């Protein structure tokens, strides 16, 4: 899902080998990425990487992709090792942030020499992790600072709304409240902290502001450039596991650029932790389980080899593999997740597909077959089939049909619509409960086209049905419209009559009042004492509302009551 750009040169520098574009296309698959696009810019080749796995933020940057490929090619194997030394930095976390944004975890990375490309990747990773994994910064927000401009210890504290600092992108000081109102990022992310008594603030021992998580960094410390050698990383959020994982992803990516990771002591009111914690995680799988579901004859050794190429440390014991996997991953819940890694290392395209031999017999749904038979019949009348949308709106379904919402027109339509709370557009804000408006909509869009226009649709009308699991039912309906000069009720009835004879049903048409139709030229269709539909000439005021300047006659009926289970 996350997509980002990487330079071929940068990737090759990180992997330590050059490849052709075609080779890269295949190599990307090891990192669960698809190479979406290739282009040249200023003499450099760039790739658009589309990472498939929303649970693998470690693969969302050039560093992560290169690392996985280096392992897959066997340049390195087993668990990646990162040295972590303690720094003497301490961060104190304010108790009052408990209901505002409780967790912050930190690290220092030293000895960096980032060029423009590396800098771009760092910013990209930070953004993508916060956006996708961090749910638009709600669960994870990341700040990276020039460590040399910061004087520890550092405080993650509750800031008063009147405190001020110069945010990135501004030249003058703003109060925290003003940042939410005026700053572009404040407007975008302000809802995450708005209406709390305090706003989160990260400051150093001299009271200098580093950032206002999760909104914006300060202008002085919050800008990292190619000159920056040492950085301070801050990750805040609501779930300690999540922020720890994001921190691990960021610091190990920076370590791939030659940075040295230094841990930081974080003091909470009731406990203390040292972050980042890169202790590997463990898991255990049965080798037979892997073999059976893979459908491949793999020896224990081969499985071990494949897993080592996916950055696992593997110990084989009693038909089991005891695994250690890197602390920048948190997606292994089940042996299946390990199985997929084995298959990716093996290469999906190296596996011979095999069609399962199953003694089964196919069969279609009988009601669908009935609908198909009705459609065939309608085509036989020379009608053009149309397929229209179920999504519509109240205005089209009632107002334009001369109907009153809340009144039941003997179920054609019923009194109420199934409506959507969060539609993309008011035009598509309900599911239709009858089809006639859809067909009039169709006619209204084809007034320039040659008449006669004779149409039908077999489609769904969605009705309220409180007793059902979804409190709704989508009934199959047949709707016919005939638009042509001199068309009358009789033309529609001729078709209806023929349909009924062909389906072998007796029916009656009984005069009713229905404001969508011309009085005296409208009836309900009754089968076995039950009203199944409506037939008539569309009222000229309805035609006027739809902008149709041609008489229209038609009918609409429920198909289910006309269905009888066939023997075959």
């Amino acid at each position, binding site marked *: 899902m996350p997509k980002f750009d990487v330079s071929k040169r940068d990737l090759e520098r990180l992997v330590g080998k050059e490849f052709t574009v075609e080779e890269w296309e295949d190599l990307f698959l090891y990192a669960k990425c698809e190479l979406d696009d290739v282009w040249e810019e200023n003499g450099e080749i760039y790739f658009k990487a589309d990472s498939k796995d929303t649970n693998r933020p470690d693969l969302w940057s050039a560093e992560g992709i290169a690392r996985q490929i280096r392992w897959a090619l066997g340049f390195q194997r087993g668990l990646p090792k990162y040295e972590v030394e303690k720094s003497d930095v301490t961060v104190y976390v304010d108790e009052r942030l408990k209901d505002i944004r409780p967790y912050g975890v930190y690290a220092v990375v030293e000895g960096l020499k980032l060029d423009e490309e590396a800098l771009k990747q760092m910013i990209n990773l930070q953004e993508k992790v916060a956006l996708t994994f961090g749910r638009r910064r709600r669960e994870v927000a990341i700040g990276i600072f020039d460590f040399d401009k910061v004087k520890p210890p550092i405080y993650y504290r509750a800031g008063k709304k009147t405190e001020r600092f110069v945010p990135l992108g501004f030249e003058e000081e703003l109060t925290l409240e003003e940042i939410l109102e005026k700053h572009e990022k404040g407007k975008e992310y302000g809802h995450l902290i708005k209406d709390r008594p305090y706003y989160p603030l990260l400051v150093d021992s001299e009271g200098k502001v580093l950032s206002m998580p999760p909104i914006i960094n300060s202008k002085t410390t919050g800008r990292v450039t190619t000159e920056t050698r040492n950085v301070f990383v801050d990750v805040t959020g609501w779930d300690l596991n999540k922020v720890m994982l994001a921190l691990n992803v960021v610091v190990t990516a920076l370590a791939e650029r030659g940075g040295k990771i230094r841990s930081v002591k974080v003091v909470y009111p009731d406990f203390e932790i040292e972050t980042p914690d890169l202790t590997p995680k463990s898991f255990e799988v049965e080798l037979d389980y892997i073999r059976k579901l893979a459908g491949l004859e793999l020896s224990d050794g081969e499985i071990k080899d494949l897993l080592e190429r996916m950055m696992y440390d593997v110990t084989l014991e009693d038909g089991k593999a005891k695994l250690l996997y890197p602390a920048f991953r948190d997606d292994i819940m089940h042996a299946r997740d390990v199985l997929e890694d084995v298959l990716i290392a093996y290469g*999906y395209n190296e596996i011979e597909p*095999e069609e399962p031999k199953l003694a089964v017999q*196919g069969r279609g749904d009988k009601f669908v077959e009935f609908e198909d038979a009705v459609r065939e019949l309608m085509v036989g009348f020379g009608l053009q*089939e149309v397929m229209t949308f179920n999504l519509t709106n109240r205005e089209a379904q009632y107002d334009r049909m001369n109907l009153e919402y809340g009144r039941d027109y003997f179920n054609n339509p019923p009194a109420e619509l199934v409506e959507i709370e969060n539609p993309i557009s008011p035009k598509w804000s309900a599911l239709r409960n009858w089809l006639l408006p859809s067909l009039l909509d169709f006619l209204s869009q084809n007034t320039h086209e040659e008449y006669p226009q004779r149409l039908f649709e077999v489609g769904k009308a969605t009705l309220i049905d409180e007793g059902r699991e*979804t409190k709704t039912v989508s009934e199959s309906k047949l709707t016919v419209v005939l638009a042509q000069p001199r068309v009358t009720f009789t033309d529609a009835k001729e078709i209806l009559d023929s349909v009924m004879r062909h389906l072998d049903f007796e029916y009656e048409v009984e005069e009713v009042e229905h404001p969508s139709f011309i009085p005296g030229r409208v009836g309900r269709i009754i089968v076995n004492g039950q009203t199944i539909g409506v037939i008539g000439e569309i009222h000229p005021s309805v035609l006027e509302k739809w902008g149709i300047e041609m008489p229209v006659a038609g009918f609409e009926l429920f198909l289910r009551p006309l269905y009888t289970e066939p023997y075959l």
Partner: protein
Amino acid sequence: MELSYGEKLTLIKLNGLKKVKFEELVKETGLEQVAVMRAVLGLQAKELAKLHERSEKVVKLTETGKKYAEIGLPEWRALRLLRERGKVTLDDLREVLSDDELKPIVGLLRKEGWANVRKEDGKLILEITEKGLKAGERPIDKALKLLAEKGVVPVKEIEKLVPVKELKRRKIGEEETLTEREVEITPEGEKLAPKVELKREVSVLTPELIKSGKWREVEFRKFDIKAPVRRIYPGKKQPYRAFLDKIRRRLIEMGFIEMTVDSLIETQFWNFDALFQPQNHPAREWTDTYQLKYPKSGFLPEDELVERVKTAHERGLAGSRGWGYVWSPERAMLLMPRAHGTALDARQLAKGVEIPGKYFTIQRVFRPDVLDRTHLIEFNQIDGFVVGEELNFRHLLGILKRFAVEIAGAKKVKFLPDYYPFTEPSVQMSAYHPELGWVEFGGAGIFREEMTRALGIDVPVIAWGIGIDRLAMFKLGIDDIRYLFSYDLRWLREAKLVW
């Protein structure tokens, strides 16, 4: 020799007249002009008659020319006034000339030497000359008179008086080509004509002709079988729906059982929770998932099933550690228009399945997207699953490949790792279409055990979905996805048959 009715009639008439103007021949036969021309050309091809055509260039008056013939040329009208008054101002000439005639008049009178021009108090004064007093009929006046009398005059004759160019320049006359046609019978024609038997010609064979046996005495007018005909439109199935029908039939032939459901509305339980998709999953965000305003919530299925799903989410099932959060039944009860056909897989698995078994469904599904040439607000999805004791990843690839061959006509396929919340491992397939190149054609995976176990299935279930929109668009020859649900009757009427 075979002659058409028209040819026969024309030949007979021509035999009496020998040589005749075409227009007269038309009158004689009583046929349409085109029919007689067709007959004459036919007779000529058979060397029974000869068509003589003579073209001549002629001149005739324009509308302006006709006016001048009536009221006189502008220079004459001006001169008459001058003769009356001796001298006039330019303004005085308005009495006899129109605005556009006024402009060139000074030049004209001067050229003819009929008037002298001088300025007096800043005004142009025209004074008649000797020549103007004596002036008589010029060649151009004669030409105008001739044209007014005869209507059309051969160019040759006009040129004796005045160059046609001059008449054209003054917009008096225009040139035209006049064709005169004469038809003459040949000796062969004369020989044949008496032997020609003329029968009544009919254009339509009527039931009366058949009943009375009179059909024996008539000739059937020959049809121009190459003539274009009116476009007519049959009743036919919507092309995209016909395409879906075809895939449905193919899937049934391949051994799949069709699944259906009673509503387009789904509970989040079946759309997400039963598929092991955690309640805080990004796909379940407000922006990515529709919710209903009315009715808001539905019901959950039986407690035991709900309990197993809840456990799978909270603590894990089948050796999984689960998602580790508190699962909310209220959230699961929320209603939405169904977002994917996979929801039906979950329903079917919970209801019970044949093992081994193959299932499919064609479902209308909904996503909060805008409607444009690459996005639909609702669309059809084809997906399903295969369940069996011994199924493995190679089978998954085998099923996908079969789809590519059967449905996309692909010769080559390519598999890519992919991610779905409810399958692991997961695959995306690209199929090599002979004309489209590599097309992303479908996705598949083995349903996660956390999901299948919760639904009461303890054998592997391969889930698949095929992306048919690009194929359908190719098949239907469209590059705007909205045409799948076309509201364009012209396009539907013209669309090629899908079979």
